[in-house]
């Protein structure tokens, strides 16, 4: 990809966002689409977030329990370190990387299919702002549901660790819970939620951009979907690095 085409894509993305971020033509229709998208993109993602968080949470606690095994450190450290990892990186960043695959590809392929089957042209002909009508409810629904998914993921991740402690007994569940509560800073949760909402915006808008600009046939929709996942993954990692430096540095 040349610098010129990258700059062109950024310009096109900005122009698309300008059309998306406008007041909806009809509030009633927006509300209808918003509730549909909340269910489709948000509620339908709970199961995958639950399964992944539960297992990864258990694995994080397992790894830390095996690797931080020093008589100089209390066993409650396992709980504290796991909590920090889960809140700061796992629930907000790793879950977003997974959702970039699930939700991002869903958005890109849905809008891409609408593009190649002329459904978007049909909206434009009617005088509907197709970008606003199709994309804004998706962005709004996903960004606003993101904190719910992150909180859910955090709880399930910590619960996965608890289950491991209950089975292995090292550290004991009580020590683990004490570690989770020890020197807990509420600001980290806000940081995690804010970061996840930013990622939610990136995932939904970038995927929508790829779908909206799909041209050709089924193969091109598949390519748009794959490209959106790749672009989203790279963007999430880059923004995570910058955001962490900005907030923590």
């Amino acid at each position: 990809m040349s610098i010129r085409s990258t700059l062109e894509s950024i310009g096109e993305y900005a122009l698309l966002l300008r059309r998306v971020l406008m007041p909806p033509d009809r509030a009633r229709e927006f509300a209808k689409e918003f509730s549909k998208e909340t269910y489709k993109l948000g509620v339908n993602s709970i199961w995958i977030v639950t399964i992944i968080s539960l297992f990864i949470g258990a694995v994080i606690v397992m790894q830390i329990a095996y690797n931080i095994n020093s008589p100089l450190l209390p066993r409650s450290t396992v709980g504290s370190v796991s909590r920090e990892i889960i809140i700061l990186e796992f629930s907000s960043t790793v879950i977003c990387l997974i959702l970039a695959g699930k939700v991002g590809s869903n958005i890109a392929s849905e809008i891409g299919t609408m593009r190649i089957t002329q459904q978007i042209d049909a909206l434009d002909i009617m005088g509907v702002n197709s970008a606003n009508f199709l994309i804004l409810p998706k962005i709004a629904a996903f960004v606003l549901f993101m904190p719910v998914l992150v909180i859910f993921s955090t709880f399930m991740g910590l619960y996965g660790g608890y289950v491991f402690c209950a089975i292995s007994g090292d550290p004991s569940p009580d020590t683990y819970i004490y570690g989770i509560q020890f020197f807990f800073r509420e600001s980290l949760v806000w940081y995690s939620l804010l970061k996840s909402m930013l990622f939610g915006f990136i995932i939904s808008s970038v995927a929508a951009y790829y779908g909206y600009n799909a041209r050709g046939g089924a193969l091109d929709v598949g390519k748009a979907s794959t490209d959106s996942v790749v672009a989203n993954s790279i963007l999430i990692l880059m923004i995570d690095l910058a955001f962490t430096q900005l907030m923590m540095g």
Partner: protein
Amino acid sequence: MIEVQNLIKQFEGKVVINNISTKFKEGAVNMIIGKSGSGKSVFLKCLVGLLRPEGGKVLYDGKDFLKMKQKDVKKLRRNMGMLFQNAALFDSKTVLENVMFPLDMFSRKNYRERKKRAEFCLERVDLLDAANLYPSEISGGMMKRAAIARAIALNPKYLFCDEPNSGLDPKTSQLIDELIQGITKDFEITTIVVSHDMNSVMNIGDHIIFINEGVKEWEGTKDHVINSDNKELNEFVFASDLFKKIKEAEETGQETRNSER
């Protein structure tokens, strides 16, 4: 009234529409015909604003569509209905919801009135029975009829049809043609149809424009299309065996009449 003046459209330097000017007949079925790749669909897309031409004017009641303010474009679009080649119905909505969609977006009527209007449109295209089905559950012909119902929901002044008969059997094609013609007359709509189907042209075409390689080659009525001396048009029209036979029959009849005299 729709008028086009010196329309030019290029793709990466290649001229696809070359200086086309024409006036469409009001309240009639205007047909744009030509071979595949001749530029007729591009021409239609320029008319409805899906493509922006590099030169020329598209005038709706004397106002240049390409220079209109966004607000006026939106207003004009509410007077346009379009039937796409593949119907372009919204997959996630039922047939009734598809027809109600433009009403939901732009009509100030209450739900009951909007539904009544949508059902009226579906009844007009004889599709009320399929109101609660999804596009994936109906045939291609039914999809086209549903798309026509959606296109007329807001009672438009202009109806644009891009290859309305593509992928349909001859009987269904005829049905769609009759529907387009009927709606044009009943609602006094100016209809513009892009087609390469000569049966359609002879069935419903009131005003015909023949485009060849981006250039308007011929313009006239269906009564003159068979007897035209335009070489390109003749090649296009008589590519079909049926029309060759009609022409031969006409010539034989003419000779007989001449010898009788």
